[in-house]
Each structure stands twice: as C-alpha cells, then as structure tokens.
C-alpha cells in the first residue's frame, strides 16, 4: 500500500490491487523482480550498461527504463540546461541520442548527418561528423516528414538507415564509412525511417512507404559486413513472407496457405503496403524478434476486399532464419490507416494465475494489447483513449467489433471517426517501469472527417485516397500523457495536454518519467501519482525520445531533442504551434557539467559541423 500512501489520486490504484487479489494471482514474480502493484515486470538482461545508452530503447525489451536514480522527485525541480547542440536541419527530430563511453552519437533528419560528440571535454565538442549525402528525391517520397526515428551502436559502429533507402555503418571512433547497402529504390516511393535494431551480430531493418504502395519488408543484415541475411515481406506468398511449418498463429482465421495473397484481390498484395517503419524488440530466451507492420495500401478499403494479411499486424520471427513463429493482425482489413508498427514492450505479467511472457502494444487503433509473446494469444485488449470505430475486441477471435457507421465508402463523407489516421498513439515509444509495473505513453485525442477517393497505382506517387480533416476529440485536448496498467487494461492516471503529445518516454529508477509536448514543454512527472514535478519550455516541439546517461564527471544527465515535425504537423495550424527546430537539450541538476565554474572553457573539437542545405553556402 506504500504505492498509495501519498496521494488521493491513488484511489484507482487501490482498486487495481484489489483486482489483482481477486483475480487470484497465485504466483508472485520471480524473486529477482521487485513486487509491483500490477505484478508486471520485465527481463532486462542483456541491456546497455546502466550509465550508457547503446540502442534506442536501452534494452531488447524496449522498456526505456534506466536504473540511474541521482535525479529524484526531490531534486528534479533544480533540473537546468547544462549544454545544447543544434544540428541545423529542419525536419522532425524523433530519435534519442546514444551514449557509449565518453561519446554521444546523434543522427540528424534528412540529410541524415551523423555526429559524435566528446562528452569528456567542456561543451561536448564535435569529435567527428559524417555525411551520407542522400538524394533529395527522398524528401518528397517520405509520407510524414523527412525524419529518422533512431540509430544504433554495435561492434564499434554507428548504424542507421538513410531516408533514400540505404543502410550505412560508420566507424564509431573515426566517423569513416565501414559499409553501405542499398535496400530499396526510392523512386518507387520506398524510404527508410526506422531505427535499426541490433540483435547479437545481426541488425533488423525495415522500409517505409505504405502511403506510396511500397511492398513492406523487414530484413536482417550482418553487423560487420552489411550483407543481407534474410528478408521477409509482409504480403505475398508464404515463401516471400517466410511462413513455413513452424508458423502457428493463435487464431484459426490466420491459419492457411498463402494468405498474404488470397486475402487480397488479384495481385493487389504486390503494392499492398505493410511496411515496417517502427520498432523491433527481441526476446533472447525465445530467440524471437517482434515487430509490427503498417497499413494496407491503398488506404481506400473498397479497393482491396479481404483481410489484407499481413498488414496492420505483429510478427514474431526466429532471429536467425527470419521464419515466422506467429502473427496477429490487430486491425483486419484496416479501413482507417491504423498501422501496427508501434513498439512492442516485452514484459512478464500475472494473468490467469501464472506469469505470462507478454508483449504490450499501444496500437494506433486505440486498443492497448497485452499479448502472450510465445503464442500470439491476446490476453488483454482495452481502449487507452477515445475511439469509436469499434466497441471492443472479441476475446474469442481476437478481432475488433467494428461500428458499421464508421466504415468508409468511396465519395461519401464520414464525420467524426475516432481516432484519426495517426491513431490514439502513433510511433512515439512508451516506457515501462518495473518499480510501478506500469507503462507510460504519450497519446493523442484526434478524430477525423473522412472522404475516401479511389486511386490508381502510379509508381512514385501516393497510393492513398484518404481526404481527411482532423480535429481534437471529446474534451478538446489534442494530447494526453497516460500511465497504463497492462495486466488489467486500465488507465491509472492521465495528464491532458492542450497540444499533441508525440515524444518518447523515459522512466527511471527514482520513479520519474519524462516526456515532451508538441508545443515544446518538457516535463518530469512522478511515476506513481502523475504529479508534474518540473517543466521547461524548449525552443521547438518535442518529438524526440528522452534518455539519461552518466557523464565522465559522474553526473546523471537527461537529454532530449527539440524539433517539431512528423505527424505532429497535422496540428500545425493551431495557435501556439511552435516553429521548427533542431536542438538537443542536455539537463543536469543546477545545469552543472564539465563546463561549470570559473575559468576559460576551450573547445577542442575533432571536426566541423556539416551544414545542410539550403543554408550550406559559404560567404566570399
């Protein structure tokens, strides 16, 4: 009950504890895991060193949880800017910086310049810079701003996708290119925006371009050579989807042969979307990678009768072979652009009297799913925000119960479908704290008026057809930051925000969670009560994922990128919407850093910045 001693808000939490007891949680979590009110915990091993951050989510499980605890609810009010870094690019900044040893790694949005910053010197000067020089054509082929959602460090290399459909590995010490591979043809509308996920000696990458009719895939590359090891498409015949004898979906409607072809009219699967532009998780014990697939193409459902497998779904695949183990389609025959690419957070939950290995996904369709990650069985599916396209998820079939009034038809105006295409939550990744057993997510409350237009496939142009007018949902607030109980499928608390909330989330062992808003507020919140303990207005909107690290000086820092863009631009006409920006903010208690105190602080940099277009001219 310590959980609730402090705050009145906890009345809901008391209910949860009562529910847990009533449900007869027969087994307490493993001794190593702390007791939490929901009973949920996670397996964090292996993960990044406590003071460092090597991959976007800090661990294979995608928790974004850090054991650092020097910044606490008591001193977080003294959080101040320690230093900043502006990269000069103007698209949405959606990733988290990485810290390896004394070096911080950043990659900018288009033109995807990489920087290494030396944290051991005052002001964190540039150690090296790297320009992959992508083609500007990619800017106009990317649906949702020329963004990148992250990058990864592994085996002495910084590895990331370039918007124009290449993947590159850069020597982390020198900034020299190690290998580079063309993964898709940007002229067809396929781009790459997701962060690669390193699993052992392999990395998993996927494509973007569902709005352009791209054929979605995920692929594994060798970390040291860039050689492609396997590629699995999201639609098409079983051999292309890498479905074989081991494939055992939990629900019967997803069993059969070549369903990636037969659930589409004619050859529509060839331009059927199902791109892989979100996050990858990995369970080292099961040796399975998990990732979601995006919307079916075109977005007009009348043109593709059928389930449209395997779009708007999640795959569990053998990391070595790529062969599918199971899949689950969240939104069969998706009619609203409810991609299934959001992060799958791997946690263990007490359900049905035993601990289940689960994954949690806050789907764009507005349901938060807790799914058995060994079998694909849906254990919990409850709305985590306002939606009206469906009433519930049928727990016998795993299928949503659809509201027929909200099923679009060509050339007919449908008012107030909730959520809009970008969902109750988009790609912005949530965090999980094993101390509270809760997930924390930045969500949105946006609905749409929709008219579908039939479209033809013209390579290099949108294969889309949705004419939308987006507006806030009930209550008028565009965003809400929530704490979610994944065992009982309940919101524990929420902070309504006037603007959209599209940042990643960081949870720390001192029971703080950090998130930002589209109008530029960066906040620290009490993880148990939802009380806002500290806020600062940054130069632009916050889409970046906050992270934390321990500097060479032993201090705990919090870092987050400020630079609005991406899907947040759907609200760009709102009064108060901020300008674009490109600044990484790094905070510490009192703003202290290596540069604090008296004395001259010299910059001892190893390289100059790379100045992106259109401001890359030099005065004569």
């Amino acid at each position, binding site marked *: 009950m310590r959980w609730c001693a402090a705050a009145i808000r906890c009345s809901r939490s008391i209910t949860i504890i009562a529910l847990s007891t009533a449900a007869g949680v027969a087994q307490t979590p493993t001794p190593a895991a702390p007791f939490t009110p929901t009973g949920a915990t996670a397996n964090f091993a292996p993960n990044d060193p406590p003071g460092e951050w090597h991959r976007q989510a800090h661990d294979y499980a995608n928790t974004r949880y850090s054991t650092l605890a020097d910044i606490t609810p008591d001193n977080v009010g003294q959080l101040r800017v320690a230093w900043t870094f502006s990269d000069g690019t103007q698209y949405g900044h959606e990733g988290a910086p990485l810290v390896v040893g004394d070096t911080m790694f950043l990659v900018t949005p288009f033109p995807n310049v990489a920087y290494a910053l030396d944290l051991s010197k005052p002001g964190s000067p540039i150690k090296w810079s790297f320009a992959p020089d992508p083609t*500007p054509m990619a*800017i*106009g*082929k990317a649906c949702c701003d020329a963004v990148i959602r992250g990058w990864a460090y592994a085996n002495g290399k910084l590895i990331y996708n370039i918007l124009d459909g290449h993947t590159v590995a850069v020597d982390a010490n020198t900034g020299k290119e190690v290998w580079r591979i063309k993964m898709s043809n940007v002229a067809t509308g396929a781009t790459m925006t997701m962060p690669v996920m390193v699993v052992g000696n392999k990395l998993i990458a996927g494509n973007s371009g569902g709005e352009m009719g791209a054929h979605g895939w995920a692929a594994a590359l060798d970390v040291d050579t860039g050689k492609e090891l396997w590629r699995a498409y999201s639609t098409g015949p079983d051999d292309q989807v890498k479905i074989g004898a081991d494939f055992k979906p939990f629900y019967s409607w997803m069993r059969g042969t070549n369903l990636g072809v037969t659930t589409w009219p004619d050859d529509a699967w060839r331009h059927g979307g199902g791109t892989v532009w979100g996050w990858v998780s990995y369970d080292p014990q099961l040796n399975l990678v998990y990732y979601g697939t995006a919307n079916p193409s075109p977005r007009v459902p009348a043109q593709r009768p059928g389930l449209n497998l395997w779009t708007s779904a999640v795959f569990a695949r053998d990391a070595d072979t790529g062969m599918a183990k199971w899949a689950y389609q969240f939104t069969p025959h998706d009619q609203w652009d409810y991609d299934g690419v959001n992060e799958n957070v791997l946690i263990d939950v007490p359900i049905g009297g035993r601990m289940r290995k689960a994954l949690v996904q806050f789907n764009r369709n507005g349901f938060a799913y807790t799914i058995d990650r060994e079998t694909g069985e849906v254990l919990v599916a409850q709305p985590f925000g306002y939606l009206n396209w469906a009433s519930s998820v049928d727990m016998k079939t795993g299928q949503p119960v659809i509201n027929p009034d909200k099923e679009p038809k060509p050339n007919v105006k449908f008012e107030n479908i909730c959520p809009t295409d970008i969902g109750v939550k988009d790609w912005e990744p949530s965090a999980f704290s094993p101390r509270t057993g809760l997930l924390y997510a930045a969500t949105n409350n946006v609905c749409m008026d929709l008219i579908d237009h039939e479209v033809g496939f*013209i390579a290099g*142009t*949108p294969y889309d057809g949705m004419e939308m007018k987006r507006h806030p949902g009930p209550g008028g607030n565009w965003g809400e930051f929530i704490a979610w109980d994944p065992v009982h499928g309940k919101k524990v608390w929420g902070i309504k925000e006037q603007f959209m909330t599209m940042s990643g989330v960081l949870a720390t062992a001192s029971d703080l969670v950090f998130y930002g808003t589209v109008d530029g507020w960066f906040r620290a919140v009490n993880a148990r009560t939802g009380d806002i303990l500290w806020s600062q207005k940054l130069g632009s909107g916050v889409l970046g994922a906050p992270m934390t690290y321990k500097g060479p000086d032993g201090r705990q820092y919090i870092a987050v990128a400020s630079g609005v863009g991406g899907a947040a631009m759907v609200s760009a006409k709102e009064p108060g919407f901020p300008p674009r920006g490109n600044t990484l903010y790094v905070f510490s208690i009192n703003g202290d850093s290596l540069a604090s105190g008296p004395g001259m602080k010299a910059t001892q940099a190893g390289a100059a910045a790379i100045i992106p277009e259109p401001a890359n001219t030099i005065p004569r």
Partner: protein
Amino acid sequence: MPQRRIFGVMAMMAIAVPAWSAPAPEGPAALVPLGDTAGSSELRLPGTLTNPFEGQPAAVTEGRRLFTKMNCAGCHNYDGSGGMGPDLTDHYWRYGGTPVAVFKTLWEGRPQGMPAWSGALPPDELWKLVTFIQSLGGMYPAPDYYGQRQGDNPHDLVAPEVAAEDAASATPPAPKP
C-alpha cells in the same frame, strides 16, 4: 499522337520559336529557364507565356479531375493546401508561380520528389492541371513572371529609381542583323 496537339498549343501562344532551337515536345516552354539568365536579357525568353486554357471552367473541372486521378492530391492534399508536397494555395513558389513556370514543373519534375509527368500526360492535360492550380488563387499571372522571380508582389510599392530601371529593361533589345 502528341505532335499535332503540341503544335496546336504553340500556335495558340503565337510565340515565335527562335530559329536556332529545334521544336521541343513541350513547346516554347522548353525555352523558359528554371533559373535566372546570366549575361542576357530575360525578355528574350517566353517566360510570360499564358496558359492556353486560362480561366476556362471546363479546364478547371478537368484539371481538378486529373489532380485527383494522377495522385497529385496524395501529396498536395485534395484542396491543394499541401502535405507531403508543398502548399499550392499560398504565394510561395520554390520553382516559380506563373503559368509557364508551373507547367514546366509538371513537365520536368523537380528534385525533391516531384515526378515528371511528360511521359504520362500530353501538354494539354498539364495545362489543364495548371488551370486548376490557378483556380486555387496562389499563383501569379503570366505578366508577373519576371517580377515574381525578383520577389515582387502585385501590391508592392516600387522605388522610383527601380521603376525606371525596370522600364528600361522592359524594352526589347534590337534584333541582331
């Protein structure tokens, strides 16, 4: 197929193609440069070409139909207000906002993902697309071709010294013998 139609467009524009230039499939618009012109009078170039379908309601309707059918709306939005691609209703034009400049953008494509439509649509259809885009209200009239390249708005005041300069340069150079 396109030959007759192209020459039809050229005749309608009544612009003389310089003798040194081979007829280009897009007509005189081929002579309009994307950038400004070094060392030469801009007025030699047919930058002020008008849209042969300008103001014709049927062309606006056809252009609107093509705007949806050819997936232009997927990037620029159904009302032209922009999305993946630029807003076509405002007055900012990266590659020029007069009819021939927009025609050339459609014909040739542009480097940031705007495809070239010369292989998919004949010039008349592209001009009808221009007519539709003109109906959105953000484009500049053809005579503003030079002024718009210099950042002028139709309602601008002009300093007298600059007005005199503009008037002098508006006199076509004498033809060379």
